[in-house]
Structure formats: C-alpha cells, structure tokens
C-alpha cells in the first residue's frame, strides 16, 4: 500500500465515480431505448426508479456525479490556471465541501417521497 495524500485519493475517487456514472449511463440508455416499445413497456420499466432501493442507488449516482463534476473543475483549474497545482490541496477540500453541501438537499428530494417529507415538487401517485 502506498500512503498517498489527498491528491491520490481525489484521483481514485474521480476514477471510481467516473466508472460508476458510466455504468449508470449504459443502463440509462437502455431504459430510454424502451421508449421504442411503447408507453406501457416504458412506464413499467421506468417505474423502477421510484422504488426505495433504486432511489438509494440514485443517491449514490448523484453524489458520485457531483463529486466528479466539482473535482473535474479542480482538475481543469490545475491544468489551465498556472497557480492551480499549488492550490490543489485547498481545492480538494473545497470540492469535498461543495459535494457534501449540494448533495444533502438533493438527497432530501430523492429520498423525500419514501419518508413522506414535503418537497413541494410534482410527484407520482402514492
């Protein structure tokens, strides 16, 4: 084992979240493909997304996507901002903070319907 510092963990997490999101994308394209089979097939397929189990997975997806997005910005800053490399550690901390801060409300909206939390948005028939 190599005891890398934040740079290494940020990279590893970036890779894992990237591959995770890719996996989801591949599934998602298939479920979109269900549109070709008419409304009944599609609606049955897509209703899976409303189940509690898939909602948990969706949360993981959203968390991963948020991290991957923010860290992507960090990487771009490292690449194009001449001082970026010097502030990579600070930027990693900011990335983690932003990820958590933006993840929490998203998680509330995703899991809300399961627990009957008020979200104020359009929601499927309970």
């Amino acid at each position, binding site marked *: 084992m*190599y005891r*890398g510092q934040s*740079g*290494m963990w940020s*990279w590893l997490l970036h890779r894992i979240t990237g591959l995770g999101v890719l996996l989801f994308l591949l599934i998602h394209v298939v479920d979109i493909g269900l549109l070709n089979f008419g409304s009944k097939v599609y609606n049955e397929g897509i209703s899976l997304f409303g189940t509690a189990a898939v909602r948990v997975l969706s949360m993981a997806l959203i968390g991963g996507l948020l991290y991957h997005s923010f860290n992507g910005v960090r990487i771009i800053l490292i*690449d194009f901002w001449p001082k970026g*490399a010097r502030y990579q550690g600070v930027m990693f901390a900011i990335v983690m903070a932003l990820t958590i801060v933006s993840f929490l409300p998203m998680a509330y909206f995703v899991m809300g319907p399961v627990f009957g939390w008020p979200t104020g948005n359009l929601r499927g028939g309970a």
Partner: protein
Amino acid sequence: MNVLMRIRRFDPDKDNKPYWDEFRVEMDPIDRLLDALNTVKWTMDGTLTYRRSCAHGVCGSDAMRINGRNRLACKVLIRDIGNKVTIEPMLGYPVLRDLVVDMDAFFDKYKSIKPYLITTDSEPGTERLQSPEERARYDEGTKCILCGACTGSCPSVWGNPDWVGPATIVNAHRFIFDSRDQGGADRLAILGQRNGVWRCRTIFNCADACPRGIPVTELIEQVKRAIVYGGDTKVE
C-alpha cells in the same frame, strides 16, 4: 530511542516471494533512518541489502518506501518516525534484492526525451548569454537527482511501467524551458504521445515524494500547457 524496524526482504536466490523481517535497534533521535539500516547491516544481519552513497540527500541512492511513502532513508530522522517503521522497496520497479530495485528502465526513460542541451547555432567564444530571469525559468527541474522517488510513487507508473513517468518529464522541462536550448519542439512531440505527459493524472504523489522539494506536478502541467499553447519565441 528503541526502534522496531519492519523490513520487506527478498533474496532471489533463496526466496520464492518477499517476506517481512523485524529488527530492534537503539538509535539517537537525530540519527537518520539510514543509520538504523547501517546498524542492522553492520551489527545484526549482514545480508540486509540496500543502496546508499552520499548519506545526505544529494546522490539519490537510497530512495525507498518508508511508512508507505517514498523517501530517502538518509533524509528521514528517527525522531520523525517514532518507535516503529515499515520499510519496503519502491513500487513500480522490479525488485533485485531486499530494498534494491532495478533502475535501468528508469534511466532508459530519462534518455528518451533527449536530456541534453540541443543547439543548432555555432558556439560563441565565451558563454551563451542568459538573463537571471531566463535562468530562473527552469531552476526547479535542475534540482532533480534522479533518485526515482517520484516515478515510484505514481499510480500511473504502477499501472503502466512503460510510461515515462514524472522524473523524465521534470528533466524534459529543464531543457524545454532553457532559453539556450533549441530541441524543445522535439521533446514536446515525444511527450505529446501516448506514453507522454497525458498519462499524468495530477495525482501529486510525485510532488510529495520528491526529496528535493521540486513541485513535480506543477512542472508537468507547464509542459502540458506548452504542448497545447506553444511557447514564447526565442529571443534573438
């Protein structure tokens, strides 16, 4: 101070696979880890094998993995590691014996980016002129002692030993940004390829491992930008 040393051992003549060995030594807090290794070798087990030469961090012989991070054994003080230390050979290189790794491929990679001044104009009778600012532009890279700690700390190298690795790019940087050099375009072309700079994923283990304090990743990023943007034209 009593120090427990856990050392990864491997003798190709005897062992099928590496194993852990332990030694207890009594050291002074301001002794260096290299002194502890010497104490083991000279008083306990003569078969313990490692490289060392200058013993003060300028020759680059004794890079190894100390408590999970690449360090020079001659620059790590006992008081900073405490009572227990784990020592392993660097990752990313074939192990020859105990803590000694094969660095031939490392030097071959270094050679691949033409690490020497390339000039096409004729030599002046005295020195080529270079302003202090131009000299400062590539100063960081000149500190490299080719110890290989950065390259051995890089996950991209562990995954793909063919990759040129950070040390090579640092040395390319040293010439690319030298105002006297005229081979920069060649080097950038080499580094723009599949095993060039793009395999750097800005992981920063290299910068942490560098015993000379070179901001390795930052220099690699400058090379990337040089490939993408091009550089300033040479002053006439």
